[in-house]
């Protein structure tokens, strides 16, 4: 029987990245419809914790203990092992998250194996010709379904495509060893810096509250943060707000920033120019607050409140906080 794999990316403190739990759930469901075995792979200096977590989603998890992953960038170290496993076991498809580590891994493994890559999957089905991958392209203007001409390949999966759900029973964890014929050059990690007040990552957030030029300055982001906190969401921003230095680039949504698909996107003082729109138009629900009733975001928001974002924002925080239940 064939196999479908998911490669786990490193999460915080040696745990499992959230996107890997989502991808594992997706792969488990896909494997069930495809009549294939779902297998998770963890490459880490000490893979035990992440593997135990991954095994709550999948029937089988392979671990590769790789000390070099401790002080070196993960993708180059992991790619050699993953490529060696692929050469040995010929999976039908290999899934990985479409975040920084997942993209780096997918590119390197593609080069090492010659397998094609379908990127930023928003949905997946199984056909007689292998996986059929749905993607949202041209900033959400078009949906495409793509496949691999050989029937096999690598897929990167967007965050929030599947909801991580544990399997009925935990799977088994097996240690594997590989021979990496020609390792990629390791890149040393000299330091890992946690920035003070680092904002919650936006890619995986269920709710995003974002500010644009209309926020007016770094102090203006206080209300954006307050609403995000009240809703349990993350703070996002437009390029104009980032370029003005009001908020770090890590929070930027749009063409040269991140593409997000939260359940709720609350846009404050954001006009909705195309460069921003391409990063958020596929969000579940879009609510906008803007003084300018003619702002382009009025064309694609679900709810548009014409008003001052600070006044509406303050009232909103009050109402959310005092809401019963």
């Amino acid at each position: 029987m064939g196999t479908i794999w998911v490669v786990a990316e490193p999460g915080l403190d040696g745990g499992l990245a959230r996107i890997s739990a989502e991808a594992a759930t997706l792969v488990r469901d896909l494997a069930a419809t495809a009549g294939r075995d779902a297998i998770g792979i963890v490459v880490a200096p000490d893979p035990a914790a992440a593997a135990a977590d991954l095994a709550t989603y999948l029937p089988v998890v392979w671990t590769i203990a790789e000390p070099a992953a401790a002080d070196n960038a993960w993708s180059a170290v992991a790619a050699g092992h993953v490529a060696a496993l692929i050469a040995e076991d010929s999976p039908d498809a290999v899934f990985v998250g479409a975040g920084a580590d997942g993209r780096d891994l997918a590119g390197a493994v593609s080069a090492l194996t010659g397998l094609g890559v379908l990127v930023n999957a928003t949905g997946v089905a199984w056909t007689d010709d292998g996986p059929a991958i749905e993607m949202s392209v041209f900033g959400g203007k078009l949906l495409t379904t793509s496949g691999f001409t050989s029937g096999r390949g690598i897929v990167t999966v967007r965050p929030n495509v599947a909801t991580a759900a544990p399997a009925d029973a935990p799977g088994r964890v097996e240690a594997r060893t590989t021979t990496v014929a020609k390792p990629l050059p390791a890149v040393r990690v000299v330091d890992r810096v946690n920035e003070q007040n680092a904002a919650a990552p936006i890619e995986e957030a269920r709710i995003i509250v974002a500010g644009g030029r209309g926020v007016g300055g770094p102090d203006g982001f206080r209300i954006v943060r307050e609403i995000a906190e009240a809703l349990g969401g993350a703070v996002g921003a437009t390029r104009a707000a980032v370029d003005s230095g009001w908020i770090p680039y890590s929070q930027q949504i749009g063409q040269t920033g991140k593409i997000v698909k939260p359940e709720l996107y609350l846009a404050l003082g954001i006009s909705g120019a195309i460069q921003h729109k391409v990063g958020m138009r596929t969000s579940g629900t879009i609510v906008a607050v803007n003084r300018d009733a003619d702002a382009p975001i009025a064309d694609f928001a679900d709810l548009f409140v014409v008003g001052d974002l600070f006044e509406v924002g303050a009232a909103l925080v009050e109402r959310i906080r005092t809401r019963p239940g």
Partner: protein
Amino acid sequence: MRIVVLVKPVPDPASAGERLGADGRLDRAAVPAVVNGNDEYVLEAALKLIEAAGEGEITLLTMAPTNAPETLRKALAMGAHRGVHVSDVALGGSCAVSTARVLAAALRQLEFDMVFAGIDASDGVGGIVPAAIAAHLGLPFLSYAARIEPDMFGRTVRVRRISATGYDVLEAPLPVLIAGTQALGEPRYPSLKGIMAARGKEIVTRSLADLGVDAISVGGAVATTAVLDSRMPPARAATEIVRGTPDEGAARIVEFLADRRII
């Protein structure tokens, strides 16, 4: 210091007119091409590095259809020294696997200390080609760069790689391939002098034969992926517009989100 900057002409995202052709491939003729946004950031970083060093050369490398030189001129006008344009009819319909192989072959013919690439391109948004090129060439790969700092002896480079909680500081011996982000800093506008100078700068064209790549090993005929179907996304429902006092607006937002079980 010799830096090669990978540049991709992409359909202008501001045009919002991108579309697929009948063959399921991007219709590059439908919309004017511009330099990919993230490529401009890494080019800016390269320009600043050679300015700070007081010496150095920047070569642009692109794989693109025959009209690419017009797009490259803008990047040359920013201050890059020359361009290499890989173009061959056999490259039409190339997938990421072919693209990485061909660009790696082109880089083998160039001398460099560092190769810079944008972290992804606004048309494909896959972000996988730079890592693949680095793997083909056996180059250390440093990605998601927010800062690039070569040491003063030109032996190693340090890169701040954006992480979920801040950044990692990566270090590798040259030569390297670095994929960079907008956090590197705003690209300059070409000056009039730069635009004039760009007209006289050399753009060399390289065919697959020039690169020693067998034409049947790349291109659309051996593409690893194919678009099977495309459709418009379901239309969003009409926008509900609320005018009133701030509190009325806030009340409607809360009600709207509660109805949708978001809160």
